[in-house]
């Protein structure tokens, strides 16, 4: 990356939303289009200050539909682009998230989740958009979604999101939440040289005759690699065409079942076939675990406390923290289901990822959800009691008090 001017480094006591913005800048994002919405507004605020300092552009669009489209346009001009929003805006973005997937456009969309549905709880936490992240746009597709649990991780995963977006030529979602977005903690920003930055494979002028150029080259026969067709950008002389319609290698409409199959095959397999590269999880004490807590984002973080307490009580409990939530860690959970007694799935919604865990556990291990609607992080006592229940231990009352005392010691 040649443009280093204006990048922040060092230790900072930084708001989660700001950390995401700084991560994006470090990843090379130079175009941000957004619309104010709590609790993601601070990302836009930060970007509006920082972009002009760094040679990029921030623009506030008329709505989130426009924001999503603008970043697709920005990306096709060859500039790494991002937007950030929360529930209501995320809903508006769904239409053109689909366009981004179909056009195979690298970009990053951050959703700082709040309680829903509808206007819901603008200022308070939720994890209720996890299934929308997977299925929110119409049609069939695979998506990549990452879940941070702290400002530092919000920073790290925004960089990772850009890298994955560029590598796989697809929109990548960062599914944060109001708690992480509005929390201020230490964020360590390394020197740019210490960070791996991936940029999309591109054809450049002279690489190939424009007439022979294929914007969606069929790479299925190519050996190894991620098999993603190199991209061109507008203005480079390739005179390419792209469309949201089912298309062929040249990007021309192909209105046939076969054409749709060819599209789906490519869009889905480029992610499914590379799960090993895309999926990141954090594993803690899984080796001897009889109970495994499967969680993500802020809920995985707050579960660490009850997990610690449960261990002290002698329950062999481990943690599988889904850093990448989509694509889902199916194999991992299938394997664990064979050796553990039960899974506990804490999340701030009425039961979303728990269904995925149930699907993968396929009856081989019990699955207990810990759910509450938006507004607050999960009660550690409730998580602790669910772990006890899952382990077959008696559930205790007044746990909040007990838990609190123990942690103070």
């Amino acid at each position, binding site marked *: 990356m040649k443009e280093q001017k204006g990048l922040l480094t060092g230790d900072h006591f930084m708001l989660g939303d700001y950390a995401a913005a700084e991560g994006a800048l470090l990843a090379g994002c130079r175009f941000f289009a957004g619309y104010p919405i709590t609790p993601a507004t601070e990302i836009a605020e930060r970007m509006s*200050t920082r972009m002009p300092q760094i040679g990029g552009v921030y623009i506030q669009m*008329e709505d989130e539909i426009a924001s999503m489209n603008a970043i*697709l*346009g920005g990306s096709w001009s060859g500039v790494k682009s991002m937007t950030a929003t929360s529930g209501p805006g995320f809903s508006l973005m769904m239409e053109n998230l689909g366009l981004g997937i179909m056009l195979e456009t690298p970009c990053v969309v951050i959703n700082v989740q709040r309680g829903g549905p509808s206007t819901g709880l603008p200022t308070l936490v939720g994890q209720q958009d996890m299934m929308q992240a997977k299925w929110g746009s119409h049609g069939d597709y695979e998506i990549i979604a990452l879940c941070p649990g702290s400002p530092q991780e919000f920073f790290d995963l925004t960089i990772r999101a850009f890298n994955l977006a560029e590598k796989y030529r697809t929109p990548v979602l960062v599914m944060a939440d109001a708690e992480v977005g509005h929390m201020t903690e230490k964020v360590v920003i390394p020197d740019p040289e210490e960070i791996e930055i991936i940029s999309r494979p591109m054809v450049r002028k002279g690489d190939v005759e424009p007439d022979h150029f294929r914007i969606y080259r069929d790479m299925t026969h190519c050996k190894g690699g991620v098999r993603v067709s190199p991209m061109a950008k507008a*203005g480079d002389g390739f005179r390419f065409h792209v469309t949201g319609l089912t298309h062929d290698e040249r990007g021309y409409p192909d209105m046939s079942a076969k054409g749709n199959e060819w599209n789906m095959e490519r869009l889905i397999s480029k992610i499914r076939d590379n799960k090993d590269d895309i999926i990141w999880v954090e594993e803690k004490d899984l080796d001897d675990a009889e109970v495994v807590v499967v969680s993500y984002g802020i809920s995985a973080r707050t579960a660490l406390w009850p997990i610690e307490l449960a261990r002290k009580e002698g329950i062999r409990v481990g943690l599988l923290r889904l850093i990448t939530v989509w694509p889902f860690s199916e194999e991992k959970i299938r394997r664990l289901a064979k050796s553990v007694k039960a899974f506990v799935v804490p999340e701030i919604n009425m039961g979303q990822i728990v269904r995925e865990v149930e699907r993968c556990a396929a009856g081989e291990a019990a699955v207990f959800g810990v759910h509450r609607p938006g507004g607050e992080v999960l009660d550690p006592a409730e998580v602790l009691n669910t772990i006890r229940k899952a382990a077959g231990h008696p559930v205790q009352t007044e746990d909040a008090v007990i838990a609190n005392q123990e942690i103070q010691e």
Partner: protein
Amino acid sequence: MSADKIPADSISHLSGYEPPDQSDWETGLHPMDSLLRGERLPHIWCQGCGLGTALTTFISALQWLEKNKEWDLEKVAVVSGIGCSGRVAGYIRLDSFHTTHGRAIPFATGLKIANPNLKVVVFSGDGDIAGIGGNHFIHAARRNLDITVICVNNFNYGMTGGQVGSTTPHGARAVTAQYGNFEYPFNLPYLAAAGGASFMARWTVLHARRLEWTLREAMEHRGFSFVEIIAPCSTAYARWNPEGKGLDPEKLRRRGLEVIKHYKEIGKISPETHPKDADVKVDENGVIIEIVEGKFIDDPKPDLQEAIDQMAPIAEKKWKAAKRAIDNRPKVKGRTDKVPRKELQLGGFGGQGIISAGKIIGQAAAIYDKLEACFTQSYGPEARGGAAGSQVVISSDLIHYPNITEPESAIIMSQGAYEKYAPLITEKGILLIDDGLVVLPENHRQDIVTYGIPATKAAEEMGNIRAANTVMLGFWTSIVGAVSKEAMKLSLADSVPPKTVDVNIKAFDYGYDRGTELKKTKAIPIPTPTEKTGTTHSGDKKSSINEP
């Protein structure tokens, strides 16, 4: 006025017509082949449709610009939405984007802003631009974004079979308006003008030549240019409306022709028309009786890019100052002793610096004492009505649970905050109040330790009432001791405005020393309500302390 009689001044700014290069005919190529995706032809458009003319005039204009104005057409990108007109992106041999319905303009916005060297043209229909995408249209005009929007207006949704739309004249028929359109249409020139378009023109496809000249001009215009092309939809709109019911209604081509003939009858070239009066006039049956044509707006003004460019030097200067401050931060070793989890609640009202005080503590702990710290502020309904609350958790270990459960200490600067937060403090916890602002009630908790300091009054006497929170910070640092004094001072210095560093350090020291003094007395300082009100305002900055 007949269309043949053109006022001279309406075209004086345009150059004349040039026939296509004859050599092309000899090669057997069509002169427009280089800009058409031949492999995608034949196109999907109906016979008699006006879109063919709209496309060829567009291509002619591009070729003219290439030839006469040294335009590099490889730098031209075309963006379309959905609909019959939206197919243009698929036929033109340029970098072209066929996006979603109504979204061509915001897509083009990103394309253009991210690469200002591109010439970006949006080519779409009335349903796309004025219907579903109407909001994007007015906003792009407002920004004076340097793109050209070409909108083919055929008064209905052609591709889906002729439904009524936002430009269908009142009373006109459509497949979903069998009794005549009961709504009123947009006047697109007026809409563009209201949005702030710096260039706006309208032609019917009958005036192909003038349309081409206008398109050249529109694309050369720097800023938001809008060209409305009125065109027959021979299959759908003309089927339901008398303009198209000509000689042989079964023949689409004829129907299209009839519409064109009608345009000839009712078209009125009138560039001096105010956009307000540019609405398509109809009779009581919805039959179009007048379409004014011409260039209605040509009003150059700074475009969006100019504004963006102007920002950069100011922003860079700001960055340099910020960077200098960060680079000058002293290097510190941090604390090595173990700090168990400590929770602090801060409360007061807006403007007292409750949020920044919490942040200063968090930063002192995280950056200068090198501990873990998590700062959060109240955003919920409780944060309304002028109340402000913030929380800090400090620990040597990773902080799993970011929120407050039972704070060991609280800094309280308003009566409301006292009532709200005092009950939360853990047993034997420490409550620090600005005792000029908080009156302790009779039933004040005896199981917590309470210290008071007239922070606001003291700060006022030091010449900056806004340093009251800093007095509380010093007070808290000496009494609670979760963060070192050095770290607090460093954090304070890079958090307050540079001009106020001195007064803030003074305020901090004052609070710190008072706290140290109070701690030395080893008394349990519980101020009673009666004692408090009188003494703390005495002006001797004496902290209220009451021995049991």
